[in-house]
């Protein structure tokens, strides 16, 4: 090789070596200078994005994400889906942590416990919590009316809840109503809003609006808030709630069955109701024990898709199996027209509450025996204070006074001499919560009931005097909570850590403008046996405690691998 060419080759080699050296130096410097990310526990937080829980859900998810992530050791990824897919996902165990809500069927502590912590209930609600001891305690409390035993079992169950953390209770909702000044008897009842006690002095017609929709007015089918609301005005049940609280009063029955008065058997498996005589449906037909039995059998036999029939045959223990059809011979006994006895297959301590639920409302003998009854005027027939006189789908409901209502003095003890108070109630159904606000702002209606957004509600509250309206907030039986799929997040220390880091105050102030009530047990505070167990154990936004749990022996890194493995498997 000539010397000149050899020299040029060496120069090229030198240039290449220098370039490599410079690149290596840059890489090393960058590695040293760029801050290293510490390992964080990655968790998905799911929420519903199709307004199943209203328009605030994304804000709730963001507030939760922020409160958990701000502690520094958990990386929360938000994910969402429409309700149909959402429910499928939790059933198929695709969501490790998700937001859920609950509205009770019957106003008993059991309805805030068994659907979540009994083994079958926990599977349905997506936590897959499986604790046979807790399951036994749930069976114990559900089968006895002895307050001492129930108190003991509920205390033990709530202690297990706070230790194992399959759920984190977050807040209970606020019932809300806005009405024009002068309207009276607007009671935010914990179970059912009673239109038939509302009074507008000097008028015969009450105009109202709501953004809830009616799905079905057949008691055998209805299982949504507004349908049940209307049913509660048009139909009646054996037992009814007091005008202002959850005390059960006689309705179509003449007294409330108890062990003391002999109407409940000592083993808690037989309930006898003595029926009021001379009661007629609004079509003029008679109400008696045969009609009552036929109504209950009809609901169980039809077992309509999406209905609450299972509350009778499964929760209410009126059937020992899940075979279709009427109750077995002898289960519902009607010895005469005015007595009816239910023989349950297992003791149900809250059976009276089930008999106060709309699914137990008697319907006339000629109601469709093989399918659901149409929800049209003339086909919706009950014994309640009102009669349905107009029903335009998703737009308008008009209720007129039932001239044959059997018990106008129902709430005389509460100072309401005769119900229904107004001759006519007109309920406009709106498509949005903004429309409700406009309705009450312009006084197009006298009462706007459910659901005004927190921002609009705060605005109306601030302008109550100038608008001449009253905004009333009350406690709602609805609870909201986080669910952990314990199979996807099996280490309870992780769940406990997140329980420490959740900040209910931030959710309440940021999303609900202080209108919600922080919740520290799955049982709301106004129910018997409620104990705010999460408050004492975890409090709110306790990052130090949360991080201490997560930091134990490099735990977060191990868990991260575990979750990645789970994700890869799926």
């Amino acid at each position, binding site marked *: 090789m000539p010397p000149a060419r050899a020299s040029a080759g060496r120069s090229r080699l030198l240039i290449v070596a220098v370039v490599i050296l410079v690149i290596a130096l840059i890489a090393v410097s960058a590695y040293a200078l760029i801050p290293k990310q510490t390992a964080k526990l990655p968790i998905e937080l799911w929420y519903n994005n199709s307004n199943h829980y209203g328009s605030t859900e994304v804000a709730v998810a963001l507030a939760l994400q922020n409160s958990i992530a701000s502690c520094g050791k958990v990386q929360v990824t938000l994910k969402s889906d429409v309700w149909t897919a959402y429910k499928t996902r939790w059933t198929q165990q695709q969501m490790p942590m998700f937001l859920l809500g609950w509205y009770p069927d019957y106003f008993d502590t059991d309805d805030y416990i068994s659907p979540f912590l009994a083994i079958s209930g926990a599977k349905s609600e997506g936590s897959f919590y499986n604790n046979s001891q807790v399951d036994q305690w749930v069976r114990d409390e559900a089968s006895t009316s002895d307050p001492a035993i129930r108190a003991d079992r509920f205390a033990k169950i709530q202690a297990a809840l706070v230790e194992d953390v399959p759920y984190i209770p977050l807040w209970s909702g606020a019932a809300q109503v806005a009405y024009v000044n002068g309207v009276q008897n607007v009671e935010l009842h914990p179970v059912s809003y009673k239109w038939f006690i509302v009074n507008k002095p000097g008028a015969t017609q009450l105009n109202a609006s709501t953004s809830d929709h009616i799905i079905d007015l057949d008691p055998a089918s209805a299982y949504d808030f507004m349908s049940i609301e209307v049913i509660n005005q048009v139909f009646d049940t054996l037992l009814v709630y007091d005008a202002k609280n959850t005390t059960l009063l006689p309705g179509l029955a003449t007294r409330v069955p108890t062990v003391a008065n002999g109407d409940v058997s000592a083993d808690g498996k037989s309930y006898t109701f003595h029926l009021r005589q001379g009661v007629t449906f609004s079509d003029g037909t008679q109400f008696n024990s045969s009609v009552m039995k036929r109504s209950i059998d009809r609901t169980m036999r039809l077992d309509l898709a999406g209905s609450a029939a299972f509350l009778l045959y499964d929760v209410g223990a009126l059937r020992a199996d899940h075979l279709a059809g009427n109750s077995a011979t002898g289960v519902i006994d009607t010895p005469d027209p005015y007595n009816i006895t239910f023989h349950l297959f297992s003791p149900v301590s809250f059976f009276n509450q089930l008999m106060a639920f709309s699914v137990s409302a008697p319907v006339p003998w000629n109601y469709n025996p093989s399918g659901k009854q149409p929800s049209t005027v003339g086909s919706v027939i009950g014994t309640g204070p009102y009669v349905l006189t107009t029903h335009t789908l998703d737009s308008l409901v008009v209720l007129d006074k039932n001239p044959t209502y059997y018990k106008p003095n129902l709430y005389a003890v509460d100072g309401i001499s005769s119900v229904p108070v107004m001759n006519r109630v007109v309920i406009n159904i*709106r498509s949005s919560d903004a429309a409700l606000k406009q309705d009450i702002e312009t006084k197009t209606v006298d009462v706007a009931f459910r659901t005004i957004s927190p921002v609009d509600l705060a605005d109306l509250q601030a302008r109550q005097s100038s608008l001449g309206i009253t905004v009333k907030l009350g406690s709602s039986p609805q609870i909201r909570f986080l669910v952990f799929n314990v199979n996807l997040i099996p280490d309870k220390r992780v769940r406990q850590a997140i329980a420490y880091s959740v900040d209910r105050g931030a959710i309440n102030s940021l999303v609900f403008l202080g209108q919600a009530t922080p919740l520290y047990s799955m049982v709301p505070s106004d129910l018997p046996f409620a104990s705010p167990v999460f408050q004492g154990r975890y409090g709110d936004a306790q990052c130090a405690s949360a991080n201490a749990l997560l930091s134990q022996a490099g735990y977060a890194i191990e868990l991260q691998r575990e979750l990645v493995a789970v994700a890869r498997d799926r």
Partner: protein
Amino acid sequence: MARDGSLLAYVLARMALAIPMLLILLTAVFIVLRVLPGDPILALWGGHTPPQPAIDAARQQLGLDQPIPVQYVTYLRNIFTGNFGLSIGETYRGQSVWTQISTRFPATLEIAIGGMAVASLVGIPLGVLGGSNRDKPIDLAVRMFGTIIWVIPIFWLGLVLQLVFGVWLQWLPANGRWTGADTPCSVPSSCAVRTGMYTVDSLIEGNLGHFVNAVAHLILPSVTLGLVLSGFFAKTVRANMLRTVSADFTEAARARGVPRRAIVYRHAFKNALVPVVTVLGLQFAILFAGAVLTEKTFSIEGIGILLLNSVTSKDMTMIQGVVVFYATIIVIISLVIDVIGAMIDPRIRL
């Protein structure tokens, strides 16, 4: 006679073509709905979950326990025999699909007609003005109006109009289709025919108070929808006017001393209208599927909200029913457009 016959043959051929189109559409909808994630049956009970036998019974009641091919055949048979079935979604659970569609369609039709009327009254004259005054200030103003109004979010415009005229001034009702308990023709004996369109029904029963009530509720949604559409109308008409104003036949008319006004309105405008009618007609058809944002803003329960709620709850029977209904409407309106086009432009009939 021969010309009429050819038009009839054309109409029949178009109708025959609609059948395979409908079949393809139905099949696509059927497949898509079953591929999408989510089980509508599980969602029927909201956040509650009944025992498994109750879920199985529901699946059986609604025919969803059958193999997919059997479901498909049943579905087609039902559709072509006019049986739209019952809703299987959470929002309209168990309700008749046809009842929902037929109850809501009059509301949608009313705001569609109202919106089209406003859009035509505002958009077409503006388009003519702009097209016949090319590059003049008035043309510039029309172009700006067309662009700005067309891009305004319809719900925002609706909310502003609601706030101003419904809440602040309280000149017009802000929400719904009706105020009061006695909707038009609610007493069956008061009307020989009931259309469900409150404006029409109140005229049928001869009740002026009811008519005013119905029209008052229709004004804000119609103006909202119409104003937004008028931008599109103005731009479409203007573009076609520009084409016809400079066409040979208008030049010829001008050379013969025909007055400008007559050239614009008798020759240019009429010829510009043919493609405009096609576009506007299809826009009208789209509105039949529901002006969902307008309906939502003004709490009018029409087809748009029905479709929206059905999609989010994966209500397969309801979605299928609405799609069939909508497809039928499109076919009918397309035919009507063609006939109108033929009436405006004689060449089409040749």
